[in-house]
Structure formats: C-alpha cells, structure tokens
C-alpha cells in the first residue's frame, strides 16, 4: 500500500497536496463539491490587517498554458476572517489550515500574524512576501534579502506556529533570499508565487489587465518553479512547499523529486474544481507505476550524490 503521508514541521499530512492561497477561497465553494478533508491542508485567501477590495477589473487574462491575475489581495481583513470565515471553515475542514498573510509594512505583517497566532485551527502561517499585484508592499519584501529577513524575524517573534515564507520568482537570485529567510528563523519556504506577466488586447491595443501587469500562473511556469525548488533545496535545510502549475499526480512527484516536502495546487483548482481531489486519488496509482512506496522518501531525489 502506497504511503502518501508527509510531515511538515511536526504536523502529519495524509497527502502532500495543499490547495494554494487565492485559488481556494476559504474552502466553502469546494466543500459544496467534495469532502475537502481529503486535502493535506489548504492555504486560505491572502489576509491583510485591514479589509481590501483589491484592483479594478479586468483582473484576469488567459495565457498560453495558464493565466494572469491581478486580484490585488481582496479580503475582508484579519478581524473579519477570524470572526466570520474561520468559524464557518471549522464546519467543513477538520485539519490544521494554512493562514496566508500579506502586508504593507513589517509591523503590519507582525500585527496580523499575532492575531492569527491565537487561532487553534491554524497549523502554519504562510507569509506572502511576493504578491506582484499591490504597490508599496507584497513583492517589495520578497525581492530583497534584508527585507524578507526583517519580515521573517518580526513574524517569528509574535507567533509560536511554524512560519513559511512564500517567495517570489521575480528576483535575480532566489537562493540568497531563501537563505536570508532561513537565517531569520523561517520554518519552511513556499515557492514559487506567480511570475510577473502581461497580455495586450489586439482590438484595444492596451493591456487586458486593468492593473496592466499581473501574476502569471499555471502549467507554463512549472519548469521554472521546479528549477527554483531544486536550487533552494541545495541551499537550505528547512522544508520546501513546492508550487507552480501542478495539475497531476505526476507533477506532484516531479516537484517532490526536485526538493519539495509538500506541494500546493493553485490554478488547476480554478479550471477543474475537482483538481485536488483527482490528484490526491491518483497519487497511489502513479506512485506504484514509478516504484515509490513511501512519498516522504523521495523529497530531493533528483539531486545527485
């Protein structure tokens, strides 16, 4: 019998498949379709200290092998998430959930995480220092090692929960930033966030996205994500949560061989709402096909020596 379980920061997951932030809301839409307890976990919609409406529409553009989004961190704010969304979530999801947090200053990140630290159903905090769709925040913290480290340190001082830093691929050297986060106390790294991209409407001759640029995601970015996971795996010893275009059980295994201890599935949820359920169900069969008995033993298997 194939063992699909993995462990992240001492918490056991039945499967390495985690639904990615921003593609799974607070879980309710998917809980109407299938039992979301089959997930390893899921990372809920990026949360900020204050409510945000986000960017004007159009926020979405189709691309070859994926899509661009510029939602801009729409969310009701951390107090409302704690008071309204999380109690509702408790009725449909009975495992530790990942709290995804964004901010516009080091202090804001810390204040939001401090509030979330008190919530029992949260297993991990995933700090997004890589949102490409907001100005004066988000990705600004994830493109400089000192800034990423400052956010990591600030968050670590206000929570006892494991902290993952979600890294941007829109950098010259992701390894330097990964090392800076590890040195600052990060318990894990999520990579990659979306790649900054653009599409132009041939009829209007202007960008399709109202915010002009947005984050490119989907199968098209998977080779880039795997390369970055591979590079970062060689440089740090904390677990990596790999994501970028994963849409099948084969993709999960490939990402884990590159160095991921678990994976996140994002864009695939938007195209096929049953994507996570299907990938999770397919995993044992695909493991058998490739002679894998125990999934947690394959992390980093693609590395030589």
């Amino acid at each position: 019998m194939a063992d699909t379980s993995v462990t992240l920061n001492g918490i056991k997951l039945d499967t390495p498949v985690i639904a990615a932030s921003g593609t799974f809301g607070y879980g309710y839409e998917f809980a109407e379709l299938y039992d979301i307890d089959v997930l390893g976990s899921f990372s809920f919609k990026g949360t900020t200290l204050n409510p945000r409406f986000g960017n004007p529409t159009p926020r979405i553009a189709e691309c070859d092998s994926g899509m661009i989004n510029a939602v801009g961190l729409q969310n009701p704010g951390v107090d409302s998430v704690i008071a309204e969304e999380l109690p509702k979530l408790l009725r449909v999801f009975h495992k530790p959930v990942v709290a995804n947090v964004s901010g516009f200053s080091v202090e804001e990140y810390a204040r939001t995480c401090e509030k979330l630290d008190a919530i029992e159903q949260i297993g991990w905090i995933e700090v997004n220092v890589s949102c490409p769709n907001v100005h004066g925040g988000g990705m600004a913290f994830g493109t400089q090692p000192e800034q990423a480290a400052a956010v990591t340190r600030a968050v670590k001082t206000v929570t006892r929960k494991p902290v993952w830093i979600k890294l941007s691929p829109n950098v010259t050297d992701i390894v330097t930033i990964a090392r800076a986060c590890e040195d600052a106390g990060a318990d894990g790294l999520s990579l990659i966030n979306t790649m900054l991209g653009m599409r132009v409407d041939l009829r209007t001759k202007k960008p399709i996205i109202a915010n002009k640029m947005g984050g490119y995601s989907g199968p098209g970015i998977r080779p880039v994500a795997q390369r970055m996971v591979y590079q970062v795996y060689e440089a740090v010893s904390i677990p990596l949560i790999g994501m970028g275009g994963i849409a099948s059980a084969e993709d999960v295994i490939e990402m884990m061989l590159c160095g991921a201890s678990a994976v996140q599935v994002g864009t695939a949820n938007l195209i096929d709402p049953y994507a996570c359920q299907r990938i999770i169900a397919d995993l044992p069969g695909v493991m058998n096909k490739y002679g894998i008995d125990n999934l947690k033993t394959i992390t980093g298997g693609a590395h030589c020596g």
Partner: protein
Amino acid sequence: MRQGTYVIRSNEPLNVVYHRMILEGDTSAITAPGQFVNIKLESFPLRRPMSIHDWDESGFCVIYKPVGRGTEYMTALPAGTALDVLCGLGNGYSLPEGVRRPLLLGGGSGCAPLYALAKACVGKGVKPTAVLGYNTKDEVYGEDLFARLGLETYVTTADGSYGRAGFVTDVMSELEYDYFFTCGPMPMYRAIERTARTSGQYSFEERMGCGFGACMGCSVMTKSGPRRVCKDGPVFRREEILWPTQA
C-alpha cells in the same frame, strides 16, 4: 453547480454574427434564467462563460458571437463533440412578487438569456414586453421566439436597418412598465439608468478566472460591499449597484 460532460447536438450560425450551440446533458443544476455555464475548450486554459439562452431536462442552449480565439474555435466544433462544462453557475434573475408588466431589455448577445426569463415569466402568468437592441439588421435574432410566446416584442437597430432606428431606451421611455430586467453592454446600462423609472435587475459581464466564486477575479464593489459577478451575480438589483465612473 454541476461539472459534467455535455455533447453537442447542434452548433450552427444563427446569422452572420451569432452562433447557437445546443448541448445535451444533465441540466438539474440550472435553477433560474440568467444563470450561465462555463465551457472548457481543449487547449485553452480558461473556460468560456456563456449565459443560458434556453434549457429543458435534456440539455441547454447558448448563443455566442465569435470574438476571439476561443469562441472562433467553438464555431468549428461538430455535433457529437463532448465538452467539459460547469453547469448552472451564478444566481440568475428572479421575478419579484407583485410585478405584472416587466420590460425585458436586451442588447446584442444579451438578448439570449432574456428568452429563458421570458418563458419563466409566462409560466408564472406574467407577460413581459421584450425590447431587443442590435447594431444592425445582420445581427437580429430571437424576435420570433419572443413573439411566439405571445409577447409584445420590439426590435431596435442603431443604424435603422431593421425595426425601429435607435436604442432600446428610446422604446423604454414610451412604454408602461412596473419593473425591468436587462442584459447587454455597459453603454446600454448607462442609458437605462438615465431612463428607468422603476426598480430592475441588471446582469453583469466580467472576465472570470474560475466562474464559481474561488478566485475573486470578477469582483465588483456594490452598496453592500464587494460581490463576485460569477457567484453572487451575475444579476444584481438596481438598488445595490455602484456604477463605475465613466473613464
């Protein structure tokens, strides 16, 4: 919402502009006129949202205009092709208690979902008046369908090549009505806002990621806060809409 495989029964041009596709499959998830489906096309990453023109127990029908690579690809799909469809999305129109003489105001592609709404009204003993607006004669479709339901039906064309020259609001301003339902482009909605003397319901269109409420790609701000066009809409009551300022 239901995800399933739907088989094309027919896919033909209605006129030089619009095409009509009839898909067979389980329609149990469709609960109101004005809802939409989201169709997966092979080799296109995102689905195509289309409003439901008509449905019965055996299938549903969409009317579409080829405007990009996806919809152009759709026109070439032969009968018998199986498509992955998310069926019965969004809230749809609802006929408020006491409404007796509603207007149906359609603009181009937006005339399509008003037919299912017209049938639903007639089924409840309410006879709406239909006003269908097009740019030009070549685009006109559906007039006979509304007329066959026994409805007073007006057609306008912007260039005057068919029916009455002008816009749906020109007819609207001359009619008696106690409510309105509309689906069409934003400039038409601005004209309706200036003309309308009653409450009503507008159906909104937006570029969507998922179509079922997960991605927040199609959010609009309303008087009661952010709402998702795909899940909380596409139909919004006139009273809750915050109109975007004209660029």
